[in-house]
């Protein structure tokens, strides 16, 4: 459903992605692992259109994303949760979750349906629906960002370093939510970047390692015993 063909991208003059070619199939859960600075975030941002491509083509469901302006991409069914949450602090938690629906001009019925689905997956958000988004903790913020991405992300959900900065207990709760998502919709495609692969063990269906702007198939086997 998502295909990279010879994609190169750079920030300033520094090349970040070099001739990437790979495919992600529908319903896959792809773990994108690699060290910091390897290009994981850039890869996701390139899909969203925030980093300009120098060469190549990204296909989403067989159609090139090139001509699609960045703000139109979420409308295709792509949800994106950035690494640093980036909630809108002027709004409440629920308003944050609803904003993508406003932007996409979904009708009230459809909006309600999607909101209920989000609350089913992340029930704890129901309780904090009316809290100002600026007032939630970092971990809770990650949950809200996930919920927000799910509003439009009906086909592809991309999560950038979802576990970073989460205490292990909270990280597990987050992983549970992802499993709930998985269970609620078998056809959804997930792309998750992570620098600590152990957190995705047993969850990702496939692993790509990104190193120096190039990808290779990998695995989530522990590289080193840590505890």
């Amino acid at each position, binding site marked *: 459903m998502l295909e990279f063909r010879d994609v190169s991208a750079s920030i300033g003059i520094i090349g970040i992605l070099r001739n990437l070619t790979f495919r992600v199939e529908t319903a896959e859960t792809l773990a994108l692992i690699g060290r910091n600075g390897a290009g994981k975030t850039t890869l996701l941002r390139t899909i*969203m259109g925030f980093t300009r491509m120098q060469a190549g083509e990204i296909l989403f469901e067989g159609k090139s994303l090139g001509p699609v302006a960045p703000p139109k991409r979420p409308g295709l069914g792509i949800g994106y949760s950035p690494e640093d949450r980036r909630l809108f602090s002027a709004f409440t938690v629920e308003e944050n979750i609803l904003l993508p629906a406003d*932007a996409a001009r979904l009708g009230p019925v459809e909006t309600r349906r999607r909101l209920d689905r989000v609350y089913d997956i992340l029930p704890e958000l129901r309780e904090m629906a009316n809290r100002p988004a600026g007032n939630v903790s970092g971990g809770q913020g990650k949950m809200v960002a996930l919920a927000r991405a799910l509003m439009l992300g009906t086909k592809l959900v991309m999560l950038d370093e979802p576990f970073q900065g989460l205490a292990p207990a909270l990280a597990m709760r987050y992983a549970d939510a992802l499993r709930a998502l998985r269970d609620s919709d078998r056809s959804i495609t997930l792309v998750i970047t992570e620098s600590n692969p152990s957190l995705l063990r047993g969850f990702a269906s496939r692993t790509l390692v990104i190193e120096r702007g190039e990808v290779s198939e990998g695995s989530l086997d522990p590289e080193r015993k840590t505890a």
Partner: protein
Amino acid sequence: MNLTIFLLALFDGISYAALVFIVALGLTLIFGVMRILNVAHGSLYAIGAYVTVSLSGYFLALGFAPVFAFPLMIVSAALVGVALGGPIEWLLLRRIYDKPEVLQLLVTFAVFMILEDVQRLVWGSQPYFEARVLQALGNVTVFGVTYTVYQLILLPLVATGLLLGLRFFLRRTVIGKLILATTEDREAAQSIGIDADRVFLFTFMVGAVLAGLGGALASPTTSILPGMGADMIVLSFAVVATAGLGQIGGAAVAALMIGLGRSFAVYVWPEVAVLVPYLIMVLVLLVRPEGLFGSPVARKI
């Protein structure tokens, strides 16, 4: 100073503040959303006035009633927003959002310089005055002092209406919410499907319309001439900075402070009237660096 004089100074201050506020409103809206301090705002104000004078001069000469100038003011403001605001954002500002603040400011400064000459090329150097609409509304006499209904009643009403309307628009409508979200985080807004480019274009056009409307509303009260925008821009900068950049309600308070400060100065100590806006700005910022209503930016580490 007795009560009569106090009230007179109050009335003068309020009607002056109303006009300044309308202009400052557009400036602070644009800054709040786009983080651009638009020096050309003053030119848009001037052109709004010129267009109003030209249009109402033409239509009134055809025999229309003076109140017909009111719809013409709105038409002029809309023209300024669409015909100037739109292209400025679309052709120039859009290319420099990722550039340093200095360059953004200088681009608007360059536009200001260009528009100053454009005004002179189009309308010449002679001042215009077109006040029939103001005269049509008549006068009121308070304590033996005659005020025009236009300045004493209409302008403050319009200013209040715009303030409430804009607040409602931003907080209660979908477009308003999308603007607020884009204001806070442009890229995050794009990532949830908000077309930030369109939001910016729209916001800038609304800001330009407000500048034009300020000029249109000012036109019956003052001479329209080249250079009128330069003074207004400095004054509305002072209002906006005193209030806190991007603070819409705050701009109303700051405009009142500056308007009242100025009118009281004329009654008490006319020699300092011209200093008042800057003194207020410096004193306020001395105590509250982020402006009266601005909130300090917490530096995260």
